[in-house]
């Protein structure tokens, strides 16, 4: 449950991202409260990842404003947005392939929060401690020397998540954290995300696996052609005619309704 009196952590105001004549994100407005988990769903090409590109600064908005705790971050460079407190994971399993697990996380721990006007000659104890904590949070402790390039898909996703946590974000954007994982791996990731949320990090996650989305999210935003067609509690998804028609379909909708009632979402 989100307190309505508090100021929003993130506020998107009429955000539009135009690629030529195509509006991948169109006039989108929503707010995310501190401590909330917002799930984003929608068909392929709905503009979910584009929204993350806009929020993380890799591909800034054509128009509209993005505010983080009231501060306008719409036009900030990606590294400045990271320093401001937004960390992101990627749909493709991004990583620094030539670096070890530990070095992957060290980069984020050292450069993620502090602009480092004049980088030092040593990483220092604080960076190492943050790195240890981030590796522990995703369960990669003790595997420091393994090279990122050799990791299987779940470990790559966890490593990417450890990097995101190591920047000590206030807002974490997760782009399909369980895409390509099996059921047991999804459960493990779900527990990990829950722990991160409990540590006080606000989360926006994009996911097609509805079990994951509805179990974790406080609210769900469904996008279609770059516009919001639903924003509300997960339980309302299956009762919304438009969502069922353009995204879920009848069969999946019935299975999801059973899951929500039976699973205690």
């Amino acid at each position: 449950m989100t307190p309505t009196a508090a100021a929003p952590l993130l506020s998107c105001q009429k955000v539009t991202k135009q690629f030529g004549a195509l509006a991948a994100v169109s006039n989108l407005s929503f707010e995310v409260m501190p401590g909330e988990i917002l799930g984003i769903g929608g068909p392929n090409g709905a503009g979910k990842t584009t929204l993350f590109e806009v929020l993380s600064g890799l591909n800034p908005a054509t128009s509209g404003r993005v505010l983080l705790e009231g501060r306008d971050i719409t036009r900030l460079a990606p590294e400045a947005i990271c320093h401001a407190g937004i960390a992101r994971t990627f749909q493709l399993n991004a990583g620094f392939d030539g670096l070890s697990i530990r070095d992957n996380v060290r980069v984020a721990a050292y450069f993620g929060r502090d602009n480092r006007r004049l980088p030092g000659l040593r990483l220092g104890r604080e960076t190492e401690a943050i790195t240890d904590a981030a590796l522990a949070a995703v369960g990669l402790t003790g595997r420091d020397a393994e090279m990122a390039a050799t990791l299987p898909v779940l470990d790559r996703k966890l490593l990417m998540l450890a990097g995101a946590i190591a920047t000590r974000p206030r807002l974490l954007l997760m782009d399909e954290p369980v895409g390509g994982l099996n059921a047991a791996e999804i459960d493990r990731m779900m527990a990990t995300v829950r722990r991160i949320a409990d540590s006080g990090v606000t989360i926006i996650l994009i996911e097609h696996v509805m079990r994951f989305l509805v179990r974790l999210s406080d609210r769900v935003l469904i996008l279609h052609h770059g516009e919001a067609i639903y924003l509300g509690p997960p339980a309302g998804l299956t009762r919304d005619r438009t969502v069922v028609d353009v995204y879920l379909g009848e069969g999946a909708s019935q299975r999801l309704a059973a899951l929500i009632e039976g699973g205690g979402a």
Partner: protein
Amino acid sequence: MTGVRRDVLICLALAAAMALLPAMVGTRYVITQITLFFIWGVVVTQWNLVLGVAGIFSLAQMALFAVGAYGTAMLGYYFGWPMPLAMLVAALVTVAVSMLIGLACLRLRGPYVALLTLAIAQVIYLMVVNDTGCFTNPPSGCMPLFGGVRGFSRFGDLGFRAILGSKWFIGQYYVGLALLVLAVLFSILLIRGPLGLAFKALRDNPGYAMSRGVGQLKYQLWVFGLSAFFTGLAGAFYAVQFGVVGPIVFSLTMLLFLLAMIVVGGMGTIWGPLLGAALLMLADEGMREMGDWRDIGLGLILALFVITLPRGLAGLRR
């Protein structure tokens, strides 16, 4: 960080061994060839920071070397500056030039960086050799501003001839050794420190690095600037070592020779480029009597390494 300590110890041990060498092999030829190895060693360890560690395929390093060499020669020739001061200023100018080149390459990737940096180097070269207007008219004849095809000579030296007489080259040897040791220590600290981490992160995945707080513009300028200081200083030392600076420092053969050292030794590693420099200089020495076959021989060695050991000599350890 035990890695730093180990590498620094290796560096100091090698330095001590090299410091004893002139007492054992005193011939002038061997000493000056090893001094030349020190110079190329500095260039390849610094070039490796851009090429191997940061993964930016810049071919501007010999042009930067030339800036250091020409800067030193011109400050000595036109203004009569003492050489140590001229060398230091020339190295700082090299840093500025390098940062400009880094800025120009910011939005380019892979082979496009190679093309642009090679073009910049060639433009500088053509501007030097095609300048035939006389800037001054000394008794020896017309002198273009940048020395033209003839280049500069008699611009000063480090003063070892006055102190050591005919053994002056041994003084130069120790200056070269000191320069290499400093350059290697510098590269160890960079590669094993936070900056090295930033360079490697941007090399492996620029978009991901940016979203983890590593700004591309900033660290591209850092790597171009930092790798240029000792490169410029090596060029400056080259000028005082040979007493002549001419357009030959821009030659493509020299550029490829040094590039081959890095590839053969192992890009992105701390010791690889130095190993490669030693190996290729020895091989070149061995083929001295072979005329045109010398370049072909070097080409074959390079091809052999690229095919059988793509990670270079240093890659053998993995």
